[in-house]
């Protein structure tokens, strides 16, 4: 594997430095030179070179071996018996990928007393549901779930396995990847099948400042964790039929090397989850004082919305961590998002920019949030918000 450059054939046309995303090609006299520390062998230069002076030697893809891997698997996480919303998002997206490949969509349920969800998964697009039940799977543990997943994947040879990028999904998937010596792409926000039937995985990197497209050409299955709330779940179709298969997997307690001794929910009673709400009222440092949160709370109550906060608000303890929106908090995509006194730093935007409608109130006309807001009001939130609340009340009352 490596890059071979034939300097004699090169005509110095300078197409390749422009094609290189990584700044690895520089002009060198009337030809070019390569910085192999920056090069990732993506092949863009090889593609544009009109005289074939650049050749990238790759590992051989064993097409026969790869062809043995078929079907799309999705790991459908449950929590205390409940199906996580990301599971339906994965099944919907997985259905689309399986259709493009002309293959089956297989959903995996692991837990204790969770079989009832199998039918829901079929209604949302699964052809086949593998149900693994047992007491040992009641609480998530890395060891028990890794054994179950690898026992399913290894003999059944799927082409693709997807996981939700939840705390547990991101704990589990890399463990499986390492056990099976597979590539894994973290926290994807885009998934496509290309003309070579490969899974093209798009994800943000460098704090969301750039996007990268990643493939796993040599190994199967191709595995990815998928960011929650990016793909929308489809409507259930109750006429869909599918097969439910119970799989018995024995895990003995000594194989599980960690023990969960206590589980604590930090979700505040009456505080709606930002991930599941259709409307979010989110406050930033512009709110100035925790007592002022009464104002956004009033609006949220009227609209049956969730209350959110930017990082500084959560860091100061004015709202619980479960309500933080952004890169180090939750990713949300509600139908309506209010950004109140939020500047709209890139780390905040990453978590909310795919909301359907964004409303911003900020007194700084230059605040970056306005560059993504569908409706922006430049002004003091303490004078504007009470008017908005009054107007919303009036409109709702008149219905």
């Amino acid at each position, binding site marked *: 594997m490596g890059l071979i450059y034939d300097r004699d054939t090169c005509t110095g046309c300078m197409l390749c430095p422009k094609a290189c995303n990584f700044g690895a090609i520089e002009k060198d006299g009337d030809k070019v030179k390569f910085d192999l520390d920056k090069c990732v062998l993506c092949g863009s230069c090889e593609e544009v070179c009109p005289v074939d002076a650049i050749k990238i030697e790759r590992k051989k893809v064993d097409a026969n071996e790869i062809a043995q891997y078929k079907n799309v698997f999705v790991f459908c996480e449950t929590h205390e018996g409940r199906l996580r919303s990301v599971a339906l998002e994965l099944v919907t997206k997985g259905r689309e990928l399986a259709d493009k490949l002309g293959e089956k969509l297989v959903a995996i349920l692991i837990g204790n007393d969770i079989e009832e969800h199998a039918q829901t998964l079929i209604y949302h697009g699964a052809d086949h549901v593998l149900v693994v039940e047992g007491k040992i799977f009641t609480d998530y543990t890395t060891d028990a779930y890794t054994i179950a997943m690898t026992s399913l994947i290894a003999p059944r040879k799927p082409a693709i396995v997807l996981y939700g990028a939840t705390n547990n999904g991101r704990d589990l998937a890399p463990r499986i990847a390492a056990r099976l010596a597979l590539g894994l792409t973290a926290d994807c926000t885009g998934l496509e099948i290309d003309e070579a039937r490969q899974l093209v995985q798009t994800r943000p990197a460098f704090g969301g400042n750039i996007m990268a497209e990643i493939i*796993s050409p040599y190994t199967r299955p191709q595995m990815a964790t998928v960011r929650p709330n990016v793909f929308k779940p489809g409507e259930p179709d109750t006429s869909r039929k599918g097969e439910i298969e119970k799989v018995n997997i024995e895990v003995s307690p000594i194989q599980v090397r960690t023990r969960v001794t206590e589980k604590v929910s930090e979700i505040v009673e009456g505080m709606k989850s930002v991930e599941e709400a259709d409307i979010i009222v989110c406050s930033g440092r512009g709110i100035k004082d925790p007592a002022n949160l009464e104002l956004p709370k009033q609006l949220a109550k009227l609209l049956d919305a969730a209350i959110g906060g930017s990082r500084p608000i959560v860091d100061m303890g004015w709202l619980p961590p479960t309500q933080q929106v952004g890169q180090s908090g939750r990713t949300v995509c509600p139908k309506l998002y209010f950004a109140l006194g939020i500047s709209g730093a890139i780390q905040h935007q990453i978590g909310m920019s795919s909301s359907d409608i964004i409303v911003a109130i900020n007194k700084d006309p230059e605040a970056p949030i306005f560059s993504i807001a569908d409706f922006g009001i430049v002004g003091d939130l303490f004078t504007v918000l009470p008017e908005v609340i009054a107007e919303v009340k009036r409109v709702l009352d008149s219905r």
Partner: protein
Amino acid sequence: MVKIVVPVKQVPEVTEVRMNEETGTLIRDGVPSILNPFDELAVEAAIQLKEKHGGEVTIITMGPPQAKDALLKALAMGGDRAVHLTDRAFAGADTWATALTLAEYIRKEEFDIVICGKQAIDGDTAQVGPELAELLGVPQICYVQKLALSEDGKQVIAQRGTDEGHEVVKAKLPVLLTATKGLNEPRLPNIMGIMKAKQKPFVEVNIEKLGTDPSRLGLKGSPTQVRKVFAPEKKKGGIKIDADNPAAAAKQLVEFLTKKGAI
């Protein structure tokens, strides 16, 4: 006595990394390099355990020659010795190849606890920790917010962040942990620390010393491949009004939202 290994990564200050929109290339020149902030939490946690129970803290990185700065910073904070895995053959590694390279070295050491950062802020994958745990054959506890050793020093008791809150998890040593926000406040190295850091044991390890088949490492050994990078699509701003008359502005907003069917 606990033997602790802390894998750290030198990362660019990500908020300053941008795309050159014209050429579509990453602008990394002039972007300062720092010790990954989550790894500072890991180093601090290791030092605190050592201060309480005695032992040794080894800092390890796989990276280019300049990554030495990240190791020196961790030594200045209080690490005891450093290992720098550096060779052209390691370059371009994805998380799998990174974890493999680290595992090939750490496996030869005696260790009780490995503490990684939750994630490196350049790639944000949070995968190297769990992959390393698997390759070392030890259990993992990810997203640790609180940490203690049991009285007999044979078990860790960790509070782990979950999507709903947290859980308390126990595991016998050896174990791998990943450190997240809230675990501690990393100390700033003082002048004495910085001076001492340069005298502490420091080994460089290249591909020959590591003794691993080069085809398994670096870009060659990586199952994933970056095909393209591009600037994220920007959502365009829409209506923007001044709130000279707050009541009128509110009315306009609510009309807009009603028309869109949002409320």
